[in-house]
């Protein structure tokens, strides 16, 4: 059926007309011309320089070694200024690039780099692979963070997680350990922009003077801070010199002037406080670069509350007439481009756990000030405008909404949502603030929370918990509950545990829940074992002097952020145990409860046979399952099943602790639900083997048929609210552009967002796109190369995703006009 032109989003119109998006700003278009055709290049400088330094400092404490290594990298890495850039600095040369962290996964590189080269996902020369093989891998063999972790894991836990490949999880617990070394974080940019590194260095020096002579660990902390201060200032000076050289040679007077300005900026920041918007942006990027070179962060280091810490210089320049909106946009977009060019090297043996070159340097807008007022300012609106006009999907954008978010902001949000690129995602102060308050932090501090990564949140001067969590395959627990502890992963059956009620003796729904609780407990225990091993092994081999220096809790205690910090900071995760497939489990349980135990339409045996056969020859049974009461349609029966399941899931998780305390759970799959689903057998909700599991806290793709408001209500009712350990519940809603047309469509969606705030749900994001467009994009990828879709917590180019994930996105319910 031909699509109605009035119902295409702006993004769809652009693609249909073959126009592709261009920026209104000439400079940005220049950068763009070869960006999309560029396969990211793996730059080996960081790995080689880092290793050189580390191999010469073995006798020093870890934080000093890391500080020296970062300093060495900053002082030796190529200084590159590309044509027409206004913001300078790179972690690995010109263009789209990726860098390597051998201290984390070094021994795996040879295989991984060859794989990346072969798959054409990244480019790297044979010579560079040879350098890594000779100069990098040998040093790290046996010393990398991942090997230390593996050595510490109890053998049975290692077996459950990794099976026969120590570098890639098997699918039951998808382990994020040592893919990155920190949880989602945002940089503490404000500090450097406002104070300058020299001032910080001075403070460190003064503290050092006061440390008693014998307190070597505290001294080491401060010495390493001073080393990284010198490192980043040296880096900036190198850029200043480079810009001066280029300016001398430059023929074009306009560019010459720009280069001289760049040189002056780099002489000023980050050493001194930024005075102008341009300086502040340059400072931001230098600091971001140092964070990136120091260690790999989940989602890549976020930008934090950008409209807050950038406002004062913006406003000053704007009021003084130094910049107008156009110039401010151009400068910011130069920064966005730098961000787009940095691609994390995320290929693992199970490469599809995170897809589409995903990185989400979350840029946060709105929210509240420390004293509880709405924080929106003119820069907020300018950044929302930039998101419409900037043709790439970086950086990720979120808005904190709350009960007093002004209508003007809500309207700007909705207008951006209507564009159809999936931006921005929304985080709800009304849910998040009370949750963090219970950790015993002051309300003023909590109001300044920073969303990072997908939906996680951080207090930049208080939080110190680092160890990266793991995704748990919840439908697998149900499979074990029904099958005497046997689970079929990737075509191999394994008996992992023995539930107390034998499968043949399951007589009631409560019996089944009992077994499910035990099977879930089994997975959760392994989670805690690995988490404890990770906390301990990370503390033994990691340090992050740069990040630690910019975190007040670390500075107060003079302790590196990878060490347990008690008393000063908060050793709290923000939801670390990631529950995958909640909807799949709930739908399965609802079908079983209704059809087997209440109506007795089918028996457990029949169900198991049908699942075993992947429903082949059992289509009738599958249909009956599909037509059971559905979670997501606000059906009382299914909602109660969901609530009870949530209760069990949360209750089991609070039984255990790691050395740092109890852990929280979250519902943030990124794309793990697709990867896990690929390895899983059929499930009792009628899902066939290999199909994606449900996403986040949402019902299975396509099952919620009563409109988005009902979906939201169901999700709200499924919250058991009995315990305080369930954070970061991710909701993804797909909406057909039809119901958003015109002014009425705008107002309806504004009201919908107010409802989301009222319901106290954690997070929501909207995918506004016509199903037809996605289907066409699958058939003719060339034509749709720049089609951006919301994946899960981030946006990506649709055609860069695997076919499975593409299908999963197509199948998410599109809420239509009624």
């Amino acid at each position, binding site marked *: 059926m031909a699509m109605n032109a009035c119902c295409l989003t702006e993004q769809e119109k652009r693609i249909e007309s073959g126009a592709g998006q261009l920026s209104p700003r000439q400079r940005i278009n220049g950068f763009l011309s070869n960006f999309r055709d560029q396969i990211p290049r793996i730059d080996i400088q960081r790995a080689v320089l880092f290793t050189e330094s580390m191999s010469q400092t073995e006798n020093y404490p870890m934080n000093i070694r890391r500080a020296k290594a970062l300093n060495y990298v900053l002082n030796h890495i190529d200084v590159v200024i590309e044509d027409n850039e206004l913001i300078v600095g790179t972690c690995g040369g010109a263009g789209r690039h990726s860098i390597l962290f051998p201290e984390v996964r070094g021994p795996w590189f040879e295989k991984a780099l060859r794989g990346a080269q072969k798959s054409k996902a990244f480019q790297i020369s044979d010579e560079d692979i040879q350098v890594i093989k000779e100069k990098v891998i040998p040093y790290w063999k046996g010393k990398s963070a991942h090997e230390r972790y593996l050595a510490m894991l109890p053998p049975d836990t290692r077996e459950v997680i990794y099976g026969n490949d120590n570098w890639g999880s098997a699918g039951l617990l998808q382990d994020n350990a040592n893919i990155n070394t920190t949880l989602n974080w945002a940089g503490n940019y404000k500090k450097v922009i406002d104070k300058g590194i020299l001032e910080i260095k001075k403070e460190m020096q003064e503290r050092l003077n006061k440390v008693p002579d014998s307190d070597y660990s505290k001294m080491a902390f401060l010495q390493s801070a001073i080393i990284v201060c010198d490192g980043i200032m040296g880096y900036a000076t190198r850029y200043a010199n480079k810009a001066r050289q280029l300016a001398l040679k430059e023929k074009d007077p306009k560019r010459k002037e720009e280069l001289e300005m760049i040189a002056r900026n780099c002489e000023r920041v980050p050493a001194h406080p930024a005075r102008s918007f341009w300086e502040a942006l340059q400072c931001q990027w230098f600091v971001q670069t140092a964070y990136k070179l120091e260690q790999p962060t989940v989602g890549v280091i976020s930008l934090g509350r950008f409209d807050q810490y950038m406002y004062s210089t913006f406003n000053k320049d704007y009021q003084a007439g130094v910049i107008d909106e156009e110039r401010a946009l151009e400068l910011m977009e130069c920064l966005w481009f730098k961000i787009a060019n940095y691609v994390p090297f995320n290929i693992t043996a199970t490469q599809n756990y995170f897809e589409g070159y995903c990185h989400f340097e979350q840029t946060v807008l709105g929210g509240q000030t420390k004293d509880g007022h709405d924080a929106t300012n003119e820069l907020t609106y300018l950044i929302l405008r930039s998101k419409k006009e900037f043709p790439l999907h970086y950086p990720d954008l979120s808005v904190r909404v709350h009960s007093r978010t002004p209508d003007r902001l809500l309207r700007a949000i909705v207008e951006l949502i209507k564009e159809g690129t999936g931006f921005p995602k929304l985080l709800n102060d009304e849910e998040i603030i009370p949750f963090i308050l219970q950790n015993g932090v002051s309300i003023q501090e909590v109001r300044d929370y920073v969303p990072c990564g997908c939906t996680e949140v951080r207090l930049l001067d208080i939080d110190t918990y680092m160890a990266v969590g793991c995704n748990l395959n919840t439908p697998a627990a149900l499979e074990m509950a029904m099958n005497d502890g046997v689970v079929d992963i990737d075509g191999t059956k394994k008996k992992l545990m023995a539930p107390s009620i034998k499968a043949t003796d399951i007589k009631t729904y409560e019996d089944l829940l009992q077994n499910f609780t035990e099977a879930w407990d089994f997975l959760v225990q392994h989670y805690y074992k690995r988490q404890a091993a990770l906390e301990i092994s990370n503390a033994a081999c990691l340090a992050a002097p740069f990040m630690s220096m910019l975190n007040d809790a670390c500075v107060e205690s003079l302790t590196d952020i990878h060490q347990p910090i008690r008393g000063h900071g908060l050793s709290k995760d923000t939801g670390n145990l990631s529950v995958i497939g909640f909807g799949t489990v709930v739908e399965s349980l609802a079908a079983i409860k209704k059809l087997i135990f209440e109506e007795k339409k089918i028996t457990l045996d029949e169900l198991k046979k049908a699942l075993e056969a992947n429903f082949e*020859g059992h*289509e*009738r*049974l599958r*249909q*009956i399952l*599909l*037509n059971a009461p559905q979670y997501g349609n*606000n059906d009382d029966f299914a909602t109660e099943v969901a609530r009870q399941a949530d209760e069990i899931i949360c209750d089991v998780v609070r039984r255990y602790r790691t050395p740092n305390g109890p852990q929280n759970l979250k519902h943030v799959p990124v794309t793990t639900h697709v990867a896990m689903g690929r390895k899983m057998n059929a499930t009792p909700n009628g899902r066939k083997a290999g199909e994606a599991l449900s996403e986040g806290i949402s019902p299975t793709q396509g099952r919620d048929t*009563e*409109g*988005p*408001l*009902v979906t939201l*209500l169901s999700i709200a009712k499924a919250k058991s609210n009995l315990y305080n350990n369930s954070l970061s519940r991710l909701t993804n809603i797909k909406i057909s552009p039809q*119901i958003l047309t*015109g*002014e*009425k*469509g705008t*107002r*309806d969606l*504004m*009201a*919908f967002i*107010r*409802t989301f705030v*009222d*319901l106290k749900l954690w997070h929501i994001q909207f995918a506004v796109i016509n199903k037809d467009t996605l289907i066409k994009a699958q058939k003719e990828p060339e034509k749709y190369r720049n089609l951006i879709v919301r994946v899960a917590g981030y946006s990506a180019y649709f055609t860069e995703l695997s076919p499975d994930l593409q299908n999963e996105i197509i199948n998410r319910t599109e*809420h239509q*006009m*009624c």
Partner: protein
Amino acid sequence: MNLIVLIKKSSVELSLKKVGVMVMKELTGRIVNIQKYSVHDGPGIRDLVFMKGCPLKCIWCSNPETQSPSFQLAYNSKRCIGVESCGYCVKECAQEVFTINGKNNIEMDRSKCINCLKCVNICCSKALHVFGTDMTVDEVFKKTQNQTDTWRSNGGVTISGGEPLLQADFVTALLKKYKTVGVHTAIETTGYAPWERLEQVARWCNLIFYDIKILNKQKHNNYTGVDNSVILQNIKKLTEKFPDIEIIVRTPVIPNINNQEKDIINIVKFLDGLDNLNDYELLPYHGYGSSKYLQLGMTYKLEGIGSLEKEPIYELNQRIRKMLNLRKKV
């Protein structure tokens, strides 16, 4: 002494009567569907309640399942998984309504059907289903009110059909209930009912969508099966008696039937004599309903007629608004 039982299912009612139980039947309405998140039938985000039964039989009707006041058996071949893997309906029906058409699909001879609904109960995929369910006021309210406490869009509930006035008592009770909790109410009506019914229901409405399809009596009769005098009298009275209710007259524009400008202008002239009209809307024809005719085993007379270009109709609509001194719609 008689035992008084409050029930709602008429089948039970019969059997209870046989054993001498006096039955006080709770008021129920026959409903086809409750649609959520409707954004085109009144302000804000709304719930749309489709009542079953309509006195008109418009040949362009896009909701044929709402015409008959009886329960109706329907077959959605798209959902059917085929007789090869199922075929339970064929076995279950003692009346031999179903035959296999050789293509893994079923065919139905509806004349033999006695409405026992055995096939519906056995069908796994809901390919066989019934249009129509009886619900009490509270049941409908519950299914829709769960949104009121979080409604931020100034939305509400719209009762549509079918013809809501055919079940005026039920609709009145339901609307009253919404009023007690302050929900915005609207109905969509053909106006074809005794004035008293319309008056009774209108009292509880904030907004009435009122259809005037064709002005010419004979033509109206030909295409809808009823005379339009009552309809025209009722709208006059309605606008006079209820100046505070928002009233919007609508005309569906159907190719080859009333899409000539003069057809519309006739209606406009009539409307010019009314007071208190809030808006007049032209609704360009769409063929979305045709698959439901198929499900019901009915023939759709307008099959393949095509759709209308929307732009000229919107443009005409704006001109008419000017003529009638109605506010331009944004």
